Protein backbone atom coordinates (compact mmCIF):
# COMPACT_ATOMS: atom_id res chain seq x y z
CA UNK A 1 0.00 0.00 0.00
CA UNK A 2 1.20 3.48 -0.80
CA UNK A 3 2.10 5.88 1.95
CA UNK A 4 -0.74 7.79 3.60
CA UNK A 5 -1.04 11.50 2.90
CA UNK A 6 0.37 13.61 5.73
CA UNK A 7 -0.19 17.27 6.69
CA UNK A 8 3.00 18.07 4.80
CA UNK A 9 0.95 17.95 1.62
CA UNK A 10 -0.71 21.33 1.02
CA UNK A 11 -4.24 19.98 0.63
CA UNK A 12 -3.90 17.77 3.71
CA UNK A 13 -2.45 20.37 6.01
CA UNK A 14 -5.54 20.59 8.23
CA UNK A 15 -6.11 16.85 8.41
CA UNK A 16 -3.76 14.37 9.94
CA UNK A 17 -4.98 11.06 8.56
CA UNK A 18 -2.06 8.91 9.86
CA UNK A 19 -2.85 10.02 13.42
CA UNK A 20 -6.39 8.65 13.04
CA UNK A 21 -5.66 5.30 11.43
CA UNK A 22 -2.93 3.91 13.62
CA UNK A 23 -4.67 0.66 14.45
CA UNK A 24 -4.44 -2.60 12.49
CA UNK A 25 -7.44 -3.16 10.27
CA UNK A 26 -9.01 -6.25 8.88
CA UNK A 27 -9.05 -5.30 5.16
CA UNK A 28 -12.00 -6.16 2.89
CA UNK A 29 -13.34 -5.02 -0.43
CA UNK A 30 -16.19 -2.56 0.11
CA UNK A 31 -19.57 -4.29 -0.15
CA UNK A 32 -22.23 -2.12 -1.78
CA UNK A 33 -25.95 -2.61 -1.37
CA UNK A 34 -27.89 -1.57 -4.48
CA UNK A 35 -31.67 -1.49 -5.01
CA UNK A 36 -31.80 -0.34 -8.63
CA UNK A 37 -32.53 -2.28 -11.77
CA UNK A 38 -30.07 -5.18 -12.36
CA UNK A 39 -29.69 -4.29 -16.00
CA UNK A 40 -27.82 -1.08 -15.08
CA UNK A 41 -24.98 -3.03 -13.50
CA UNK A 42 -22.04 -3.78 -15.75
CA UNK A 43 -18.84 -5.70 -15.12
CA UNK A 44 -16.56 -2.87 -15.96
CA UNK A 45 -17.33 0.39 -17.64
CA UNK A 46 -14.97 1.14 -20.49
CA UNK A 47 -14.27 4.76 -19.88
CA UNK A 48 -13.05 4.98 -16.30
CA UNK A 49 -11.17 7.92 -14.89
CA UNK A 50 -11.42 9.91 -18.07
CA UNK A 51 -9.16 12.62 -16.76
CA UNK A 52 -5.89 12.24 -15.09
CA UNK A 53 -5.76 12.16 -11.35
CA UNK A 54 -2.02 12.47 -11.39
CA UNK A 55 -2.11 16.28 -11.28
CA UNK A 56 -2.00 16.02 -7.53
CA UNK A 57 0.33 13.72 -5.72
CA UNK A 58 -1.96 13.60 -2.73
CA UNK A 59 -4.42 11.14 -4.24
CA UNK A 60 -2.47 7.90 -4.03
CA UNK A 61 -4.86 6.79 -1.33
CA UNK A 62 -7.54 6.21 -3.95
CA UNK A 63 -5.49 5.05 -6.91
CA UNK A 64 -5.83 1.46 -8.06
CA UNK A 65 -8.74 0.58 -5.80
CA UNK A 66 -10.66 -2.52 -6.79
CA UNK A 67 -13.93 -1.84 -8.65
CA UNK A 68 -16.85 -2.81 -6.46
CA UNK A 69 -19.81 -1.46 -8.41
CA UNK A 70 -20.28 -0.06 -11.92
CA UNK A 71 -23.61 1.38 -12.98
CA UNK A 72 -24.39 2.53 -16.48
CA UNK A 73 -27.68 4.26 -17.24
CA UNK A 74 -28.27 3.90 -20.97
CA UNK A 75 -28.78 6.78 -23.35
CA UNK A 76 -32.07 8.62 -22.98
CA UNK A 77 -33.15 6.56 -19.96
CA UNK A 78 -34.81 8.55 -17.23
CA UNK A 79 -34.86 6.47 -14.07
CA UNK A 80 -38.01 7.51 -12.21
CA UNK A 81 -37.44 5.81 -8.89
CA UNK A 82 -34.43 7.01 -6.89
CA UNK A 83 -31.72 4.37 -6.56
CA UNK A 84 -30.13 3.65 -3.18
CA UNK A 85 -26.60 2.48 -2.64
CA UNK A 86 -25.54 1.59 0.90
CA UNK A 87 -22.22 0.65 2.41
CA UNK A 88 -21.35 -0.65 5.87
CA UNK A 89 -17.98 -0.89 7.50
CA UNK A 90 -17.76 -2.54 10.89
CA UNK A 91 -15.44 -1.59 13.70
CA UNK A 92 -11.90 -2.87 13.16
CA UNK A 93 -12.49 -3.25 9.43
CA UNK A 94 -11.02 -1.29 6.57
CA UNK A 95 -13.13 -1.56 3.44
CA UNK A 96 -11.98 -0.17 0.13
CA UNK A 97 -13.32 0.04 -3.36
CA UNK A 98 -14.16 2.12 -6.37
CA UNK A 99 -17.69 2.80 -7.57
CA UNK A 100 -18.43 3.95 -11.09
CA UNK A 101 -21.57 5.77 -12.14
CA UNK A 102 -21.98 6.51 -15.82
CA UNK A 103 -25.00 8.30 -17.23
CA UNK A 104 -25.04 8.11 -20.98
CA UNK A 105 -26.40 10.87 -23.17
CA UNK A 106 -29.56 12.50 -21.75
CA UNK A 107 -29.97 9.85 -19.04
CA UNK A 108 -31.33 10.89 -15.66
CA UNK A 109 -30.91 9.45 -12.20
CA UNK A 110 -31.37 10.32 -8.54
CA UNK A 111 -28.90 8.47 -6.36
CA UNK A 112 -29.09 8.18 -2.58
CA UNK A 113 -25.68 7.22 -1.28
CA UNK A 114 -25.59 6.19 2.37
CA UNK A 115 -22.67 4.97 4.41
CA UNK A 116 -22.47 3.43 7.86
CA UNK A 117 -18.95 3.83 8.99
CA UNK A 118 -17.65 2.23 12.19
CA UNK A 119 -14.19 1.26 10.95
CA UNK A 120 -12.40 2.92 8.03
CA UNK A 121 -14.05 3.27 4.67
CA UNK A 122 -11.79 4.30 1.83
CA UNK A 123 -13.70 4.78 -1.36
CA UNK A 124 -13.38 6.40 -4.73
CA UNK A 125 -16.25 7.20 -7.03
CA UNK A 126 -16.14 8.22 -10.65
CA UNK A 127 -19.17 9.94 -12.08
CA UNK A 128 -19.31 10.32 -15.83
CA UNK A 129 -22.14 12.42 -17.20
CA UNK A 130 -22.38 12.36 -20.96
CA UNK A 131 -23.98 15.23 -22.87
CA UNK A 132 -27.33 16.24 -21.42
CA UNK A 133 -27.22 13.70 -18.58
CA UNK A 134 -28.51 14.72 -15.16
CA UNK A 135 -27.58 13.23 -11.80
CA UNK A 136 -28.89 14.18 -8.38
CA UNK A 137 -26.58 12.71 -5.77
CA UNK A 138 -27.62 12.78 -2.11
CA UNK A 139 -25.11 11.57 0.44
CA UNK A 140 -25.44 10.97 4.15
CA UNK A 141 -24.10 8.62 6.73
CA UNK A 142 -23.83 7.43 10.26
CA UNK A 143 -21.26 5.80 12.49
CA UNK A 144 -18.25 6.86 14.52
CA UNK A 145 -15.58 5.70 12.13
CA UNK A 146 -13.37 7.10 9.42
CA UNK A 147 -14.29 7.94 5.87
CA UNK A 148 -11.84 8.93 3.17
CA UNK A 149 -13.79 9.60 0.02
CA UNK A 150 -12.89 10.84 -3.43
CA UNK A 151 -15.51 11.72 -6.00
CA UNK A 152 -14.45 12.59 -9.52
CA UNK A 153 -17.07 14.02 -11.82
CA UNK A 154 -16.62 14.38 -15.53
CA UNK A 155 -19.37 16.31 -17.26
CA UNK A 156 -20.11 16.72 -20.95
CA UNK A 157 -22.14 19.37 -22.72
CA UNK A 158 -25.41 20.39 -20.96
CA UNK A 159 -24.80 17.80 -18.25
CA UNK A 160 -26.01 18.57 -14.73
CA UNK A 161 -24.63 17.33 -11.44
CA UNK A 162 -26.56 18.40 -8.36
CA UNK A 163 -25.11 17.03 -5.13
CA UNK A 164 -25.90 17.28 -1.45
CA UNK A 165 -23.99 15.91 1.48
CA UNK A 166 -25.01 15.85 5.12
CA UNK A 167 -21.89 15.35 7.23
CA UNK A 168 -22.90 14.54 10.75
CA UNK A 169 -21.23 11.19 11.10
CA UNK A 170 -17.71 9.90 11.58
CA UNK A 171 -14.80 10.75 13.83
CA UNK A 172 -12.66 11.72 10.83
CA UNK A 173 -13.99 12.46 7.37
CA UNK A 174 -12.07 13.55 4.31
CA UNK A 175 -14.46 14.40 1.52
CA UNK A 176 -12.58 15.23 -1.64
CA UNK A 177 -14.45 16.19 -4.79
CA UNK A 178 -12.99 16.92 -8.21
CA UNK A 179 -15.35 18.09 -10.89
CA UNK A 180 -14.51 18.79 -14.52
CA UNK A 181 -16.89 20.72 -16.74
CA UNK A 182 -15.69 19.75 -20.21
CA UNK A 183 -18.64 20.72 -22.41
CA UNK A 184 -20.61 23.96 -22.78
CA UNK A 185 -23.54 24.74 -20.46
CA UNK A 186 -22.60 22.20 -17.85
CA UNK A 187 -23.89 22.72 -14.31
CA UNK A 188 -22.06 21.45 -11.24
CA UNK A 189 -23.72 22.25 -7.95
CA UNK A 190 -22.28 21.04 -4.66
CA UNK A 191 -24.19 21.74 -1.45
CA UNK A 192 -23.91 20.39 1.99
CA UNK A 193 -23.77 20.81 5.72
CA UNK A 194 -21.51 19.74 8.51
CA UNK A 195 -23.12 19.31 11.90
CA UNK A 196 -20.25 18.33 14.14
CA UNK A 197 -19.76 17.90 17.85
CA UNK A 198 -17.45 16.14 20.36
CA UNK A 199 -14.07 15.55 18.64
CA UNK A 200 -15.39 15.09 15.12
CA UNK A 201 -13.21 16.21 12.23
CA UNK A 202 -14.53 16.77 8.73
CA UNK A 203 -12.50 18.13 5.83
CA UNK A 204 -14.17 19.01 2.54
CA UNK A 205 -11.74 19.56 -0.30
CA UNK A 206 -13.20 20.63 -3.63
CA UNK A 207 -11.69 21.38 -6.99
CA UNK A 208 -13.84 22.42 -9.93
CA UNK A 209 -12.22 22.66 -13.33
CA UNK A 210 -14.02 24.88 -15.82
CA UNK A 211 -12.68 23.57 -19.11
CA UNK A 212 -15.45 24.80 -21.41
CA UNK A 213 -17.34 28.08 -21.91
CA UNK A 214 -20.75 28.95 -20.42
CA UNK A 215 -20.69 26.56 -17.51
CA UNK A 216 -22.00 27.14 -14.01
CA UNK A 217 -20.58 25.79 -10.79
CA UNK A 218 -21.66 26.49 -7.25
CA UNK A 219 -20.42 25.38 -3.85
CA UNK A 220 -22.81 26.16 -1.05
CA UNK A 221 -21.91 24.86 2.41
CA UNK A 222 -23.04 25.63 5.95
CA UNK A 223 -21.39 24.31 9.06
CA UNK A 224 -22.36 24.08 12.68
CA UNK A 225 -19.61 23.14 15.08
CA UNK A 226 -19.94 22.37 18.76
CA UNK A 227 -17.60 21.11 21.51
CA UNK A 228 -14.09 20.38 20.16
CA UNK A 229 -15.22 19.71 16.60
CA UNK A 230 -13.13 20.84 13.70
CA UNK A 231 -14.32 21.58 10.21
CA UNK A 232 -12.26 22.28 7.13
CA UNK A 233 -13.40 23.66 3.81
CA UNK A 234 -10.96 23.98 0.97
CA UNK A 235 -12.71 24.92 -2.23
CA UNK A 236 -11.08 25.87 -5.47
CA UNK A 237 -12.52 26.99 -8.77
CA UNK A 238 -10.10 26.79 -11.68
CA UNK A 239 -11.29 28.61 -14.78
CA UNK A 240 -9.29 27.66 -17.86
CA UNK A 241 -8.61 30.22 -20.54
CA UNK A 242 -11.13 28.69 -22.91
CA UNK A 243 -13.92 28.84 -20.29
CA UNK A 244 -15.39 32.25 -21.10
CA UNK A 245 -18.74 33.24 -19.55
CA UNK A 246 -18.10 31.00 -16.59
CA UNK A 247 -20.25 31.44 -13.50
CA UNK A 248 -18.37 30.06 -10.53
CA UNK A 249 -19.51 30.62 -6.97
CA UNK A 250 -18.42 29.46 -3.56
CA UNK A 251 -19.98 30.17 -0.21
CA UNK A 252 -19.09 28.51 3.06
CA UNK A 253 -20.56 29.95 6.25
CA UNK A 254 -20.00 28.48 9.67
CA UNK A 255 -21.39 28.96 13.15
CA UNK A 256 -19.31 27.98 16.13
CA UNK A 257 -21.34 26.97 19.17
CA UNK A 258 -18.34 26.47 21.42
CA UNK A 259 -15.10 28.32 22.14
CA UNK A 260 -13.12 25.18 21.40
CA UNK A 261 -14.65 24.40 18.02
CA UNK A 262 -12.58 25.34 14.99
CA UNK A 263 -13.32 26.00 11.37
CA UNK A 264 -10.66 26.43 8.71
CA UNK A 265 -11.82 27.76 5.37
CA UNK A 266 -9.70 28.27 2.31
CA UNK A 267 -11.65 29.41 -0.73
CA UNK A 268 -9.59 29.80 -3.89
CA UNK A 269 -10.18 31.13 -7.38
CA UNK A 270 -7.75 30.58 -10.20
CA UNK A 271 -8.96 32.34 -13.33
CA UNK A 272 -7.39 32.47 -16.78
CA UNK A 273 -10.43 33.56 -18.79
CA UNK A 274 -11.31 37.27 -18.90
CA UNK A 275 -15.09 37.18 -19.17
CA UNK A 276 -16.28 35.37 -16.06
CA UNK A 277 -18.45 35.88 -13.00
CA UNK A 278 -16.85 34.31 -9.98
CA UNK A 279 -17.18 34.91 -6.29
CA UNK A 280 -16.19 33.30 -3.06
CA UNK A 281 -17.11 34.00 0.49
CA UNK A 282 -16.65 32.48 3.88
CA UNK A 283 -17.79 33.57 7.31
CA UNK A 284 -17.23 32.00 10.69
CA UNK A 285 -19.15 33.44 13.61
CA UNK A 286 -21.21 32.72 16.65
CA UNK A 287 -24.97 32.66 16.50
CA UNK A 288 -26.13 36.24 15.95
CA UNK A 289 -27.67 37.76 19.10
CA UNK A 290 -30.05 40.21 17.40
CA UNK A 291 -32.34 37.69 15.65
CA UNK A 292 -32.29 35.62 18.84
CA UNK A 293 -33.45 38.58 20.93
CA UNK A 294 -36.10 39.45 18.35
CA UNK A 295 -37.58 35.95 18.49
CA UNK A 296 -37.43 35.89 22.29
CA UNK A 297 -39.12 39.30 22.43
CA UNK A 298 -41.94 37.63 20.50
CA UNK A 299 -42.36 35.04 23.23
CA UNK A 300 -40.31 32.22 21.70
CA UNK A 301 -38.17 30.56 24.40
CA UNK A 302 -34.42 30.89 23.88
CA UNK A 303 -33.75 27.23 23.09
CA UNK A 304 -36.58 27.06 20.59
CA UNK A 305 -35.48 30.36 19.04
CA UNK A 306 -31.93 29.04 18.68
CA UNK A 307 -33.15 25.85 17.03
CA UNK A 308 -35.28 27.87 14.63
CA UNK A 309 -32.31 30.03 13.64
CA UNK A 310 -29.94 27.10 13.24
CA UNK A 311 -32.45 25.25 11.11
CA UNK A 312 -32.85 28.35 8.94
CA UNK A 313 -29.09 28.66 8.63
CA UNK A 314 -28.53 25.05 7.59
CA UNK A 315 -31.56 25.16 5.28
CA UNK A 316 -29.77 27.76 3.16
CA UNK A 317 -27.96 24.78 1.66
CA UNK A 318 -31.19 23.61 0.02
CA UNK A 319 -31.38 26.41 -2.54
CA UNK A 320 -30.20 24.20 -5.39
CA UNK A 321 -33.14 21.85 -4.80
CA UNK A 322 -35.95 24.40 -4.87
CA UNK A 323 -37.16 22.96 -8.19
CA UNK A 324 -37.11 19.41 -6.82
CA UNK A 325 -39.90 19.54 -4.28
CA UNK A 326 -39.70 15.96 -3.06
CA UNK A 327 -35.95 16.04 -2.43
CA UNK A 328 -36.21 19.53 -0.95
CA UNK A 329 -38.77 18.28 1.57
CA UNK A 330 -36.78 15.14 2.35
CA UNK A 331 -33.62 17.12 2.97
CA UNK A 332 -35.60 19.59 5.06
CA UNK A 333 -36.74 16.67 7.23
CA UNK A 334 -33.15 15.38 7.41
CA UNK A 335 -32.01 18.77 8.65
CA UNK A 336 -34.73 18.84 11.31
CA UNK A 337 -33.72 15.35 12.36
CA UNK A 338 -30.00 16.01 12.65
CA UNK A 339 -30.65 19.23 14.57
CA UNK A 340 -33.15 17.38 16.72
CA UNK A 341 -35.92 19.91 16.14
CA UNK A 342 -38.33 17.50 14.43
Amino acid sequence: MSALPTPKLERWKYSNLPAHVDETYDVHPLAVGYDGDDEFIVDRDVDLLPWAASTYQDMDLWMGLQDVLSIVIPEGKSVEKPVNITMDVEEGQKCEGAIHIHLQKNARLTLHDTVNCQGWMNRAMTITLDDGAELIHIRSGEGQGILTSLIQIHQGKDAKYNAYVMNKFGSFVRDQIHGALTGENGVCSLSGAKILSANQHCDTCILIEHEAPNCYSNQNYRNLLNDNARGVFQGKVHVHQIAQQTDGYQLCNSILLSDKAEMDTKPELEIYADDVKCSHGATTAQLDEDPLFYLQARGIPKEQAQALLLEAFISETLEAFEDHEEIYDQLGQTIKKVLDVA
Partner: protein
Amino acid sequence: MIEIKNLHAEIEGQPILKGLDLTIGKGEVHAIMGPNGAGKSTLSYILAGKEEYEVTEGDILFNGESILDMEPEERAAAGLFLAFQYPVEIPGVQMTNFLKTSLNAVRKARGEGELETLDFIKLLRAKTTELGIKDEMLKRAVNVGFSGGEKKRNEVLQMAILEPQFCVLDETDSGLDIDALKIVADGVNALREAERSFLVITHYQRLLDYIVPDQVHILAEGKIIKSGDAQLAKDLEEQGYETFVKEAA
Protein backbone atom coordinates in the same frame (compact mmCIF):
# COMPACT_ATOMS: atom_id res chain seq x y z
CA MET B 1 -49.90 48.99 34.54
CA ILE B 2 -46.24 49.91 34.40
CA GLU B 3 -44.16 51.67 37.02
CA ILE B 4 -40.57 52.60 36.35
CA LYS B 5 -38.87 53.67 39.55
CA ASN B 6 -35.56 55.50 39.77
CA LEU B 7 -34.15 53.43 36.92
CA HIS B 8 -30.39 53.52 36.44
CA ALA B 9 -28.91 51.47 33.63
CA GLU B 10 -25.67 51.13 31.75
CA ILE B 11 -24.18 49.37 28.79
CA GLU B 12 -20.57 48.23 28.85
CA GLY B 13 -20.00 50.32 31.96
CA GLN B 14 -21.40 53.46 30.32
CA PRO B 15 -24.31 54.94 32.33
CA ILE B 16 -27.28 55.76 30.08
CA LEU B 17 -30.31 56.04 32.33
CA LYS B 18 -29.80 58.06 35.48
CA GLY B 19 -32.85 57.85 37.66
CA LEU B 20 -35.83 57.59 35.33
CA ASP B 21 -39.33 57.61 36.82
CA LEU B 22 -42.43 56.90 34.81
CA THR B 23 -45.87 55.53 35.61
CA ILE B 24 -48.37 54.57 32.94
CA GLY B 25 -51.89 53.59 33.93
CA LYS B 26 -54.27 51.16 32.26
CA GLY B 27 -55.50 52.30 28.85
CA GLU B 28 -53.16 55.31 28.75
CA VAL B 29 -50.94 56.39 25.91
CA HIS B 30 -47.72 58.11 26.92
CA ALA B 31 -45.09 59.53 24.61
CA ILE B 32 -41.41 59.95 25.32
CA MET B 33 -39.53 62.47 23.24
CA GLY B 34 -35.92 63.35 23.45
CA PRO B 35 -32.77 64.27 21.60
CA ASN B 36 -30.32 61.72 20.23
CA GLY B 37 -28.44 59.88 22.93
CA ALA B 38 -30.98 60.70 25.64
CA GLY B 39 -31.55 57.00 26.35
CA LYS B 40 -34.80 56.45 24.45
CA SER B 41 -33.81 53.20 22.75
CA THR B 42 -32.02 52.01 25.86
CA LEU B 43 -35.28 52.34 27.77
CA SER B 44 -37.16 50.29 25.18
CA TYR B 45 -34.51 47.54 25.13
CA ILE B 46 -34.44 47.39 28.93
CA LEU B 47 -38.21 47.06 29.04
CA ALA B 48 -38.02 44.15 26.55
CA GLY B 49 -35.13 42.51 28.43
CA LYS B 50 -32.11 42.79 26.16
CA GLU B 51 -29.12 41.19 27.83
CA GLU B 52 -26.39 43.75 27.17
CA TYR B 53 -28.08 46.41 29.29
CA GLU B 54 -27.50 46.27 32.98
CA VAL B 55 -29.89 47.78 35.46
CA THR B 56 -27.79 49.10 38.33
CA GLU B 57 -30.50 50.71 40.44
CA GLY B 58 -34.26 51.04 40.59
CA ASP B 59 -37.01 48.73 39.40
CA ILE B 60 -39.63 48.16 36.72
CA LEU B 61 -42.99 46.88 37.92
CA PHE B 62 -45.48 45.43 35.47
CA ASN B 63 -48.90 44.93 37.06
CA GLY B 64 -47.22 45.29 40.42
CA GLU B 65 -44.45 42.72 39.84
CA SER B 66 -40.83 43.33 39.01
CA ILE B 67 -39.85 42.16 35.55
CA LEU B 68 -36.11 42.70 35.91
CA ASP B 69 -35.34 39.02 36.46
CA MET B 70 -37.59 37.86 33.63
CA GLU B 71 -36.32 36.57 30.28
CA PRO B 72 -37.50 38.46 27.18
CA GLU B 73 -39.87 35.59 26.28
CA GLU B 74 -41.37 35.66 29.77
CA ARG B 75 -42.03 39.38 29.46
CA ALA B 76 -43.69 38.78 26.08
CA ALA B 77 -45.87 36.08 27.60
CA ALA B 78 -46.76 38.42 30.47
CA GLY B 79 -48.09 40.90 27.92
CA LEU B 80 -45.25 43.26 27.13
CA PHE B 81 -44.50 44.07 23.50
CA LEU B 82 -41.71 46.07 21.89
CA ALA B 83 -42.19 47.30 18.35
CA PHE B 84 -38.58 47.54 17.20
CA GLN B 85 -37.06 50.65 15.70
CA TYR B 86 -35.05 48.37 13.43
CA PRO B 87 -36.97 45.10 12.99
CA VAL B 88 -34.43 42.31 12.55
CA GLU B 89 -34.17 40.37 9.30
CA ILE B 90 -34.27 36.62 9.84
CA PRO B 91 -33.36 34.79 6.63
CA GLY B 92 -34.77 31.30 6.31
CA VAL B 93 -37.57 31.76 8.85
CA GLN B 94 -40.80 32.19 6.99
CA MET B 95 -43.30 34.82 8.23
CA THR B 96 -46.31 32.54 8.75
CA ASN B 97 -44.25 29.95 10.58
CA PHE B 98 -42.69 32.68 12.74
CA LEU B 99 -46.04 34.27 13.62
CA LYS B 100 -47.59 30.92 14.48
CA THR B 101 -44.59 29.83 16.57
CA SER B 102 -44.67 33.18 18.38
CA LEU B 103 -48.41 33.15 19.10
CA ASN B 104 -48.41 29.54 20.22
CA ALA B 105 -45.39 30.06 22.48
CA VAL B 106 -47.17 32.99 24.14
CA ARG B 107 -50.48 31.10 24.38
CA LYS B 108 -48.71 28.11 25.89
CA ALA B 109 -46.97 30.29 28.48
CA ARG B 110 -50.31 31.94 29.33
CA GLY B 111 -51.86 28.50 29.84
CA GLU B 112 -54.07 28.80 26.76
CA GLY B 113 -54.21 26.00 24.19
CA GLU B 114 -52.04 26.21 21.08
CA LEU B 115 -53.91 27.09 17.90
CA GLU B 116 -54.28 24.55 15.11
CA THR B 117 -53.01 25.67 11.71
CA LEU B 118 -56.50 26.33 10.31
CA ASP B 119 -57.60 28.45 13.27
CA PHE B 120 -54.34 30.33 13.13
CA ILE B 121 -54.70 31.05 9.41
CA LYS B 122 -58.21 32.40 10.04
CA LEU B 123 -56.91 34.73 12.74
CA LEU B 124 -53.98 35.80 10.57
CA ARG B 125 -56.26 36.54 7.61
CA ALA B 126 -58.44 38.79 9.74
CA LYS B 127 -55.47 40.76 11.07
CA THR B 128 -53.67 41.11 7.74
CA THR B 129 -56.82 42.34 6.04
CA GLU B 130 -57.24 45.07 8.67
CA LEU B 131 -53.64 46.20 8.16
CA GLY B 132 -53.64 45.90 4.39
CA ILE B 133 -50.88 43.29 4.42
CA LYS B 134 -50.68 41.14 1.31
CA ASP B 135 -50.42 37.34 1.44
CA GLU B 136 -47.24 37.58 -0.59
CA MET B 137 -45.49 39.25 2.37
CA LEU B 138 -46.37 36.29 4.59
CA LYS B 139 -44.57 33.88 2.29
CA ARG B 140 -41.28 35.71 2.63
CA ALA B 141 -38.68 35.32 5.34
CA VAL B 142 -39.17 37.56 8.40
CA ASN B 143 -38.40 41.18 7.40
CA VAL B 144 -36.08 40.04 4.59
CA GLY B 145 -36.41 42.35 1.60
CA PHE B 146 -39.20 44.30 3.33
CA SER B 147 -39.43 48.03 2.70
CA GLY B 148 -39.26 50.35 5.71
CA GLY B 149 -43.04 50.62 5.70
CA GLU B 150 -43.53 46.87 5.43
CA LYS B 151 -41.22 46.26 8.37
CA LYS B 152 -43.14 48.66 10.61
CA ARG B 153 -46.47 47.28 9.44
CA ASN B 154 -45.15 43.84 10.30
CA GLU B 155 -44.42 45.03 13.84
CA VAL B 156 -48.00 46.24 14.20
CA LEU B 157 -49.24 42.92 12.78
CA GLN B 158 -47.31 41.03 15.46
CA MET B 159 -48.74 43.36 18.07
CA ALA B 160 -52.25 42.72 16.81
CA ILE B 161 -51.73 38.96 16.89
CA LEU B 162 -50.12 38.75 20.34
CA GLU B 163 -52.63 41.15 21.95
CA PRO B 164 -50.25 42.52 24.58
CA GLN B 165 -51.31 44.69 27.53
CA PHE B 166 -48.43 47.08 27.23
CA CYS B 167 -46.85 48.14 23.94
CA VAL B 168 -43.63 50.07 23.51
CA LEU B 169 -43.24 51.68 20.10
CA ASP B 170 -39.61 52.56 19.52
CA GLU B 171 -39.37 55.27 16.85
CA THR B 172 -42.04 53.54 14.82
CA ASP B 173 -42.19 56.63 12.60
CA SER B 174 -38.53 56.55 11.56
CA GLY B 175 -38.07 55.86 7.88
CA LEU B 176 -41.76 56.13 7.04
CA ASP B 177 -43.40 58.39 4.48
CA ILE B 178 -46.73 60.02 5.37
CA ASP B 179 -48.85 57.28 3.77
CA ALA B 180 -47.02 54.49 5.57
CA LEU B 181 -47.13 56.49 8.79
CA LYS B 182 -50.93 56.81 8.55
CA ILE B 183 -51.37 53.08 7.97
CA VAL B 184 -49.16 52.22 10.93
CA ALA B 185 -50.85 54.81 13.17
CA ASP B 186 -54.32 53.55 12.18
CA GLY B 187 -53.17 50.05 13.07
CA VAL B 188 -52.01 51.20 16.48
CA ASN B 189 -55.14 53.28 17.10
CA ALA B 190 -57.30 50.27 16.28
CA LEU B 191 -55.57 48.46 19.15
CA ARG B 192 -56.21 51.24 21.68
CA GLU B 193 -58.57 50.08 24.38
CA ALA B 194 -59.27 50.40 28.08
CA GLU B 195 -57.09 47.44 29.05
CA ARG B 196 -54.10 48.25 26.86
CA SER B 197 -51.41 50.89 27.44
CA PHE B 198 -48.82 52.34 25.09
CA LEU B 199 -45.46 54.01 25.36
CA VAL B 200 -44.64 55.82 22.13
CA ILE B 201 -40.99 56.74 21.79
CA THR B 202 -40.31 59.27 19.09
CA HIS B 203 -37.99 61.96 17.89
CA TYR B 204 -40.57 64.08 16.16
CA GLN B 205 -43.97 65.40 17.05
CA ARG B 206 -45.42 64.25 13.69
CA LEU B 207 -46.36 60.74 14.84
CA LEU B 208 -48.27 62.23 17.78
CA ASP B 209 -50.63 63.99 15.36
CA TYR B 210 -51.83 60.52 14.45
CA ILE B 211 -51.42 58.70 17.75
CA VAL B 212 -52.58 61.31 20.23
CA PRO B 213 -51.01 60.75 23.68
CA ASP B 214 -52.51 61.34 27.09
CA GLN B 215 -49.16 62.45 28.42
CA VAL B 216 -45.85 63.56 26.92
CA HIS B 217 -42.48 63.28 28.66
CA ILE B 218 -39.18 64.77 27.66
CA LEU B 219 -36.20 62.48 28.19
CA ALA B 220 -32.76 64.04 28.32
CA GLU B 221 -29.50 62.74 29.73
CA GLY B 222 -31.14 59.65 31.16
CA LYS B 223 -33.97 61.33 33.05
CA ILE B 224 -37.47 62.64 32.47
CA ILE B 225 -36.98 66.40 32.67
CA LYS B 226 -40.50 67.54 31.94
CA SER B 227 -43.97 66.05 31.59
CA GLY B 228 -47.17 67.47 30.21
CA ASP B 229 -50.13 66.84 27.94
CA ALA B 230 -50.15 66.54 24.13
CA GLN B 231 -49.49 70.29 23.88
CA LEU B 232 -45.98 69.74 25.25
CA ALA B 233 -45.02 67.86 22.10
CA LYS B 234 -46.15 70.84 20.00
CA ASP B 235 -44.21 73.32 22.17
CA LEU B 236 -41.18 71.10 21.86
CA GLU B 237 -41.47 71.01 18.10
CA GLU B 238 -41.53 74.83 18.06
CA GLN B 239 -38.88 75.61 20.63
CA GLY B 240 -36.51 72.65 20.26
CA TYR B 241 -35.02 70.38 22.91
CA GLU B 242 -32.32 72.87 23.88
CA THR B 243 -34.75 75.23 25.62
CA PHE B 244 -36.19 72.50 27.80
CA VAL B 245 -32.86 70.92 28.62
CA LYS B 246 -31.49 74.31 29.75
CA GLU B 247 -34.65 75.05 31.73
CA ALA B 248 -34.28 71.74 33.57
CA ALA B 249 -30.64 72.36 34.34
